[in-house]
């Protein structure tokens, strides 16, 4: 008798724990997910998020029917959050609006592969019509989980879908899975660095050995660097804790640093920027968020746009216009230049007029996160 009372108490405790958390997780309910993304990604995104909530009514007609989309995000991270914001915007543009005819299930795997596959099982159990997977590892989990049931998967922020075996060598999907790639414009970035720093010889790149995207980007940089008279000095790290030492070591050897979209490194970017600023060494970014927080410049992607493009693909699948297996994965063609005037001033570097004129964004201050 006594035993069963204890069991009951434990069960009650678990339920209470689960209950209070569900109240705290607005993403899984009907409230707009944009608010959470905006909270983490600073002012500009907040503005975009406002647009998202106001725009849909005027732009697209609400499509008949009800849809459920499961969004599985691999890690908590500015670029990936922007992808999600963009994705919902893209769906809204096509008349599939959250809270009206769309239920969004959102889960974040916090960079844990085991969690990723359970998230997918959960989405399937809740009968998601489409699964959106943000970043490579979770896209692979989604593919292997959804394959059985034939639920279409739309991925984004997968740098190399071919290498990840999510698409064939010619770009055709391997199954009911397609999406967008966030492949870095390596050549354009190198060209930009050459214009900014005519005398620089060595570019330092820090990356984490556990991220496949970074490893393939490094190879591409190494192959292309010679064409622009650069030499790449790489420094592989395995955890966030390695970054301070690796940064000190690398900064002693190079003329500038260049960032990839490496999740681990980007999360610790403020630390790297601080160290680099003390030595007056410029740091180049790979996307707009990084320039906002203090990178000198970047030729990079706008992840919100990437997300929008992905959302439109998902809308086609939801409306039944096309199957996922009939669409090749897409990339964003035009990479944009972003620069930070304040950082340039601090470093005593001038952003060449040619670049400044074509800039998609120039920032006059450093946003402190």
């Amino acid at each position: 008798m006594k035993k069963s009372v204890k069991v009951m108490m434990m069960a009650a405790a678990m339920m209470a724990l689960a209950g209070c958390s569900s109240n705290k997780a607005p993403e899984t309910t009907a409230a707009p997910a944009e608010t959470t993304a905006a909270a983490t990604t600073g002012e500009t995104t907040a503005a975009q998020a406002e647009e998202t909530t106001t725009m849909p009514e005027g732009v697209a007609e609400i499509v008949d029917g009800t849809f459920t989309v499961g969004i599985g995000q691999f890690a908590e991270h500015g670029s990936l959050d922007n992808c999600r914001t963009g994705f919902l915007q893209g769906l809204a543009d096509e008349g599939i609006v959250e809270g009206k005819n769309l239920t969004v299930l959102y889960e974040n795997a916090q960079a844990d592969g085991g969690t990723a596959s359970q998230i997918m099982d959960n989405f399937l159990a809740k009968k998601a019509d489409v699964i959106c997977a943000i970043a490579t590892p979770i896209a692979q989990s989604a593919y292997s989980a959804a394959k059985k049931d034939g639920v279409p998967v739309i991925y984004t922020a997968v740098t190399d879908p071919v290498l990840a075996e999510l698409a064939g060598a010619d770009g055709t999907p391997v199954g009911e899975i397609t999406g967008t790639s966030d492949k870095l414009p390596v050549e354009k970035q190198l060209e930009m660095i050459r214009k900014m720093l005519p005398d620089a010889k060595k570019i330092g790149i820090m990356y984490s050995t556990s991220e496949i995207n970074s490893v393939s980007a490094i190879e591409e940089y190494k192959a292309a660097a010679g064409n622009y008279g650069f030499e790449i000095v790489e420094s592989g790290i395995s955890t966030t804790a390695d970054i301070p030492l690796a940064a000190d070591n690398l900064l002693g050897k190079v003329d500038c640093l260049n960032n990839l979209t490496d999740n681990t490194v980007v999360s610790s970017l403020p630390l790297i920027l601080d160290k680099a600023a003390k030595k007056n060494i410029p740091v180049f970014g790979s996307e707009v968020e990084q320039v906002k927080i203090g990178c000198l410049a970047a030729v990079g992607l706008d992840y919100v746009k990437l997300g929008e493009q992905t959302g439109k693909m998902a809308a086609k699948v939801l409306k039944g216009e096309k199957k996922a297996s009939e669409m090749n994965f897409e990339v964003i063609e035009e990479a944009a230049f972003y620069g930070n005037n304040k950082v340039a001033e601090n470093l005593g570097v001038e952003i060449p007029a040619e670049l400044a004129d074509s800039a998609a964004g120039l920032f006059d201050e450093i946003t402190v996160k």
Partner: protein
Amino acid sequence: MTIVLGVLEEGLIYAIMALGVYITYKILDFPDLSVDGTFPMGAAVTAMLILKGVDPVVTLVLAFLGGAAAGCVTGFIHVKMKVRDLLSGIIVMTALYSINLRIAGKSNVPIFSKETIFENEWLTNHVPEALDPYVVTIILLIIVVICKILLDLYMQTRSGYLLRAVGDNDTLVTSLAKDKGMVKIIGLAIANGFAALAGCVYCQQKGFFEISMGTGTMVIGLANVIIGTKLLKKFGAVKATTAVIVGSIVYKACVSLAIALGMGASDLKLITSVLFLGILVFSNMQDGRGKTHA
């Protein structure tokens, strides 16, 4: 139904690893952290071998052997170099991160397009379509049962008796003129072999190797063992190995239930801890005496 199959699949895969943790934690009283490294090691070995065209069934054996070798290293460091148990596990786990990257060549290796034990020509030709959704679970069940029977049989051999004796009363082993260090090494080798085998099966089922997949393996293993053995303690006739397998499934069911109830996936680790602590406290109260190391 999807969720039940999902729970069974995940639970059964981790059950293989939990059988290993059962040996180290329950029998040898050795908190072996190296499983966090041997689990992805099994997956790395598997992904590599499958890409090279090795038969998926053969990879099961080779992954086990690879894990066993790593287990021997943990044992060697502990027994011969006299490093504390927890530390030897941590040392091997850390080293394996680099070794796994070397084995796999990169941090993420997909094998979607290759044949695995779950997806191959033989199965497509011989399994009726109606059974399709259950194939993975059935194959996993077969593997787990084979592992369990082999382990049970091993426990009845001379070497198995010595293994149990080292955990209970190591003076006895010494008085029998046996090297208890050697017995510990064998125990660790088997345990890590099982962890690597679980990694191998996991990799084949999910279709890719990812360097981060081993994080928290040890904690899951411990939870499985403790939940299983404590829950089924009342049923004396149930073998500990069976209890461990049931424990794995119960554990995954709890996690799944928590997600289904609306808990964020980011809170999963907290659930694990609470569940873990709850079971420990509950069973200690039941025992009426607190085990200091549990």
